[in-house]
């Protein structure tokens, strides 16, 4: 209670969110009387970032910086326009489609939002889309990254649950497509509401020129995909290789990248990633303190006492996950929730662990874009130069779309389970 009150109070007082989490963890230590935890607090703050998987964040932010100054994004978007022809809200669909393709390569929302903000937002703004709506579409598209395989979240879940990661990936395909389709519908509706500009149908010579100009730029996604699929690099390293390709193309082919830009990019990437990373560090400390007091296990026991129906349990769980997703990040949340909830779900309610994992991961992914603590939301706001509060409001229809898909999955688990069964 005290902690919940402090949390809301501090947020309203406009204390930075990362510090709100750290302060609440501290308050909770004193409230629970477990002051011995104070000795581990700094180490736990450091330890929250000691995770190899997090390296993808600064690296993809760096890649985004290079793509921005190297003139890569502009040409790739021009290519998409040249291919697409005349469609109302064309660029918005291009944005979502590009996100879907990126999602099939990347597994991290923040990484994807970073890249797509650089690629799509400036171009959409130039064509007359409202900037905030463009950023919102880009942020929503980032949600596809951890749902469409490969996915960092599914992998972490698979390791905790001792499940075949391949099965989880396959199980994520249908929900990923459903969310993609739901987002298409939302964009159609937004296009109507905001009167999105129609993409122009270019004459053939202009089209050919756009394609020719984009060919070197296409080297960058090709480098990223090729080095991952070829087993040369894992996704984090592929971002480093992609950055090299970007520097080469930007400096020597397009001649837009100056040496000074390269130096500045490192500082900018450090600054942007630190804001997100520091938030993850304090979110981890917060989860650790909550876990230490055994709160998740008590909640699991309480839920178990309330219902015998798997459906009701899953619905209650989803409400709980949404609340947890609001105040923390998916990775700490998974470590917080899965070890206590999974045995209850499979043991007491007989729920399929693959299905359970997909629902949990999709739900927690949503938390990336919900205030007050949403790393994806903040990244999009930071990269797009839009206020997070404004962005959260614009994202509402996308949230509703994802919630509808979650509800569909919970009521009809076959949507998740049939594909792994067939393949």
């Amino acid at each position: 209670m005290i902690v919940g009150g402090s949390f809301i109070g501090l947020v309203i007082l406009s204390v930075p969110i990362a510090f709100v989490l750290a302060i609440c963890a501290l308050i909770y230590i004193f409230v629970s009387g477990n002051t011995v935890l104070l000795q581990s607090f700094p180490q736990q703050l450091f330890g929250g970032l000691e995770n190899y998987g997090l390296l993808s964040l600064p690296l993809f932010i760096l890649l985004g910086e290079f793509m921005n100054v190297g003139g890569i994004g502009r040409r790739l978007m021009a290519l998409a326009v040249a291919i697409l022809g005349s469609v109302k809200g064309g660029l918005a669909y291009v944005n979502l489609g590009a996100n879907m393709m990126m999602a099939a390569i990347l597994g991290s929302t923040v990484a994807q939002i970073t890249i797509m903000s650089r690629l799509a937002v400036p171009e959409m703004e130039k064509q007359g889309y409202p900037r905030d709506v463009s950023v919102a579409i880009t942020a929503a598209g980032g949600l596809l990254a951890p749902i469409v395989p490969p996915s960092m979240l599914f992998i972490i879940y698979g390791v905790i649950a001792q499940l075949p990661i391949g099965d989880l990936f396959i199980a994520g395909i249908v929900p990923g497509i459903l969310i993609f389709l739901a987002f298409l519908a939302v964009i159609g509706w937004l296009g109507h509401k905001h009167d999105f500009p129609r993409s122009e149908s270019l004459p053939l010579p202009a089209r050919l020129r756009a394609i020719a100009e984009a060919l070197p730029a296409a080297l960058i996604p090709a480098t990223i995909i090729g080095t991952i699929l070829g087993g040369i690099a894992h996704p984090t390293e592929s971002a480093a290789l992609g950055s090299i390709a970007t520097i080469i193309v930007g400096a020597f082919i397009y001649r837009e990248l100056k040496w000074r830009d390269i130096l500045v990019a490192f500082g900018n990437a450090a600054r942007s990633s630190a804001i997100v990373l520091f938030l993850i560090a304090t979110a981890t400390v917060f989860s650790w303190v909550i876990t230490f007091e055994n709160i998740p296990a008590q909640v699991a026991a309480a839920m178990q006492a309330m219902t015998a129906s798997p459906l009701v349990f899953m619905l209650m769980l989803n409400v709980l996950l949404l609340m947890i997703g609001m105040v923390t990040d998916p990775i700490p949340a998974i470590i917080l929730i899965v070890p206590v909830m999974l045995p209850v779900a499979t043991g007491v309610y007989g729920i399929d662990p693959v299905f359970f994992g997909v629902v949990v991961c999709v739900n927690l992914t949503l938390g990336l874009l919900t205030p007050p603590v949403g790393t994806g939301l903040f990244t999009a706001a930071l990269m797009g130069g839009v206020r997070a509060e404004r962005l959260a409001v614009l994202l509402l229809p996308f949230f509703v779309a994802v919630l509808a898909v979650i509800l569909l999955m919970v009521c009809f688990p076959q949507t998740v389970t049939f594909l792994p069964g067939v393949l």
Partner: protein
Amino acid sequence: MENTVQSSAGLAGQVRPPSALARFSTGLAQAEILLAGVLMFLLFVLLLANVTGRFLGVPLIWVDELAVYLMVIVAFLAAAAALDARQHIAVTLLSDMMSPRAAGLLRLLADLILLAFLLALAWMVWIWFDPLTAAAAETLDAFAAQSFNFIYQEPTVTLGVRKVWFWLILPVFAVTATIHCLAQIEADLRLLKGAGR
């Protein structure tokens, strides 16, 4: 939500020369970003070395661990610097609705809370490092045996150095973040004075 410094300058309605503390804080922040950028470059090179090494069949087993520590140091350095520019993400819905003076008071209150936390963090880091007791003990091993505090014994897994070298970023962060926070509080006070006149 970002860079409220600009709006606060407009709020004062007048430009006064920055104080010595403000200049020091900003200079420190620039140094932090510079160092973080250099370490970021190093991190980038390390990952490229890792790919190259593995490709050539000579994986560098220490790269992953060092890369992670570099990332942590970058995060703390630049997170401290972000305090100077007020770039940390905060929900400013309430202060946006308030009068300039009330918003200034609110900002002062938030900064004071932040300062209290940073001092608490500095204190926690102090009891963890326990430098006076450690210096008084005959050896660091003896210190660990007496105090059950193994901070100076903790090894890294693949780097062959003690982990405490990397943990040192925490006292650095506690100090620099406190300096940035004090500079913000001073700025808040000057602004309030200016707005009151």
